[in-house]
C-alpha cells in the first residue's frame, strides 16, 4: 500500500526583507515579499527522501493561508511533491497557533495520512509548537526536532539532538515528525520540476469543507491576543577603532571600563 505523506508548509514574509505589523497587529502579509518558509524546505526534502526509499509513496503538501500562499505550494511541488491542498478562507485571517493546528489537523484527516512531516518552526512566528499540537490533536506519536529521519516497515526512526542529550527515537506509523535545518540541504527545483509543478493538482478547501465554524478560528477566535507592538529602536553604533597593533589592548580597556573584567 502506498505510503501517504503530508508535508505542512507555511508561506511567510521574507526574513531578509522588512517585516511589519498591520493595523490590527497581525503580521502584515500584503506589503511583504512572501515565500515558502526556508525551514519548511527541509521538511519537503526529507519527505522526498523518505518517498524515494518507499516502494510506493505519495506526497501531499498542505498549507493554510491567503491566495499568495499558493506560491509556497508551487515551490514544494516543483521540488517534487505530488499534489497540494490549500486551505483558504477570509475568516482565517488572524488565526493563532492553536487555531492553525485545528485547521491543519482537520485537513490532514480529510486528506488521509500515514506520516505528517513539518519543519522545526516557521521563520516568522518561530514558535515551533505546531508539530506537537498536531500530534496531540491527531492522537498519534510525535517524533520531533530530528536531524536524521527514516521510515522502515511502518516504523519511523530519528535522531534528536537536544540541549542536554542526543536521543534515538522511534514510533509506529501513523505519526507526526518535524525536522531541523541539520537534516540535510534541500534540493533546488529543476527546470523540469518547475514545468511539471504547473500541471500538478492543487485542491482548495474552505472552513465549511473541514466542518469548522468561523468563530473557532481567525483573530476573534484566537486563544491569545497581541495588545501592543513597538519597533525596537535601532542600536546606535558605538566606538569603532582600527587595529594598528593595539586593537586587542584597546578592546580590553573598554571591557575593563564597562566592568566586564
Amino acid at each position, binding site marked *: 500500500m502506498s505510503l501517504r505523506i503530508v508535508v505542512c508548509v507555511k508561506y511567510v514574509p521574507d*526574513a*531578509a526583507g522588512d517585516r511589519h*505589523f498591520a493595523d490590527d*497587529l497581525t503580521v502584515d502579509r500584503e506589503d511583504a515579499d512572501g515565500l515558502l518558509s526556508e*525551514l519548511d524546505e527541509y521538511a519537503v526534502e526529507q519527505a522526498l527522501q523518505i518517498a524515494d526509499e518507499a516502494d510506493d509513496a505519495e506526497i501531499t503538501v498542505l498549507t493554510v493561508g491567503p491566495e499568495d500562499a499558493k506560491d509556497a505550494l508551487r515551490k514544494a511541488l516543483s521540488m517534487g511533491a505530488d499534489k497540494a491542498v490549500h486551505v483558504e478562507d477570509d475568516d482565517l485571517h488572524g488565526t*493563532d*497557533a*492553536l487555531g492553525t493546528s485545528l485547521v491543519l489537523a482537520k485537513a490532514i484527516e480529510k486528506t488521509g495520512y500515514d506520516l505528517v512531516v513539518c519543519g522545526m518552526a516557521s521563520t*516568522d512566528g*518561530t*514558535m*515551533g*509548537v505546531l*508539530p*506537537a*499540537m498536531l*500530534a*496531540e*490533536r491527531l492522537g498519534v*506519536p*510525535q*517524533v520531533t526536532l530530528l536531524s536524521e529521519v527514516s521510515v522502515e516497515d511502518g516504523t519511523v526512526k530519528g535522531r534528536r539532538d*537536544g*540541549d*542536554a542529550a*542526543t536521543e*534515538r*527515537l*522511534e*514510533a509506529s506509523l501513523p*505519526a507526526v515528525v518535524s525536522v*531541523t535545518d541539520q537534516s540535510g540541504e534541500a534540493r533546488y527545483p529543476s527546470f523540469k520540476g518547475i514545468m511539471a509543478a504547473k500541471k500538478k493538482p492543487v485542491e482548495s478547501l474552505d472552513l465549511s469543507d473541514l466542518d469548522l465554524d468561523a468563530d473557532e478560528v481567525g483573530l476573534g477566535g*484566537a*486563544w*491569545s*491576543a*497581541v*495588545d*501592543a507592538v*513597538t*519597533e*525596537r529602536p*535601532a*542600536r546606535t*553604533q*558605538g566606538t*569603532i*577603532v*582600527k*587595529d594598528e597593533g*593595539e*586593537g*586587542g*589592548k584597546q*578592546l*580590553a580597556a*573598554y*571591557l*575593563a571600563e564597562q566592568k*566586564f573584567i
Partner: protein
Amino acid sequence: MAEVLVYVDHVDGAVRKPTLELLTLARRIGEPVALALGSGAEATAATLGEHGAVRVLTADAPEFADYHVVPKVDALQAAYDSVSPAAVLLPSSGEAKEIAARLAVRIGSGLITDAVDLEAGDGGPVATQSVFAAAYTTKSRVSKGTPVITVKPNSAAVEASAAAGTVEPLTVSFGDTATGTKVVSREPRESTGRPELTEAAIVVSGGRGVNGAENFSLIEGLADSLGAAVGASRAAVDAGWYPHSNQVGQTGKSVSPQLYIASGISGAIQHRAGMQTSKTIVAINKDSEAPIFDLVDYGVVGDLFDVVPQLTEEVKARKG
C-alpha cells in the same frame, strides 16, 4: 492568593537557572507551585523553596525517561487539574515548548512562547516578546482559558524568597498515547565545563572568519579567560567547524547575555536574530563594512588572529 504552576527543569535534582528565573516571575502573578518530574525530583525542593515555591509536586516513573514528551504532558495535566492555577509557566527549551503546546491543546487554553518578561495585568499575565529578529517588541496575553507561557532564559534576575517548598507526591496516570514514541537510546552531551550558552552572562562567538575548526581554540581561549560560553555562527557550524548545539541565530540558540563578543562574524539577519538583544555587543572583523558593526557598542576593525590573542592575554593580565 492564586497559585501559579511552574514546570521545573532539573538534572538529577540540580535545578537549572531558568527555572529560578521562572519562580521570580511567577511571584509577580501569584504563589508559585512547582512540578518536578523524574529522577531526583524530591531533591529539587530545597532550592525551589528558597526561591518562593510554596509547594513542590513530585512524580517519578520509568515512563518519563523511556518515552518522548507525552508522559510529562500527562503529569503536567495532572498537576494542572490538582492545582487549578492562574497560569502555567515553563522554560523555553525545545522539549518544554512541546509540553506546553500539548497542554494548551488539552485544556483549551491559549499559549505564548518565548516571553522575555512577564507582569501581572488586569486581564491576566502580560508577556513581552521580541519578534521578527528582535526588530519589534510585543505585549501579549492569553484570551481563552488558563495562560500557558514559556519564558526564555535570562529574562529576569533571580531573586531568593523563602517559602515552605513542601514536597507533595503527585499521582499521575498515563494515557494511551504516553508510550507512543520510544526513546531507544540517550547519549548525554559531554560537558565542556563552560557555562550553558543560553544562560551565560558573557558569550564569545566565532564565524566564517575563524576559518577552520582548529582555529576555534582561539575563541575558546578568549571565552575561558572571561568565564564565557562559546557560540558559533551558522556559517561556522555548516562548515563543520563547531557543533550545532553552539549555533547562535534564528535556527540555533537565541542569547541575551550582558556581553556578546562576535569574532569574524559578518552579522547576517540569521545571526542577528539570535543575539541582538544582548546588553553590550562587541565585534572584531577585518571588513569595516560588515553589518555587525551597525549593532556594536565597540568594534575593532582588524584581523581576529591578531586581535583575539592580544585581547585574551590582556584579559588574563588584568585579572591577574
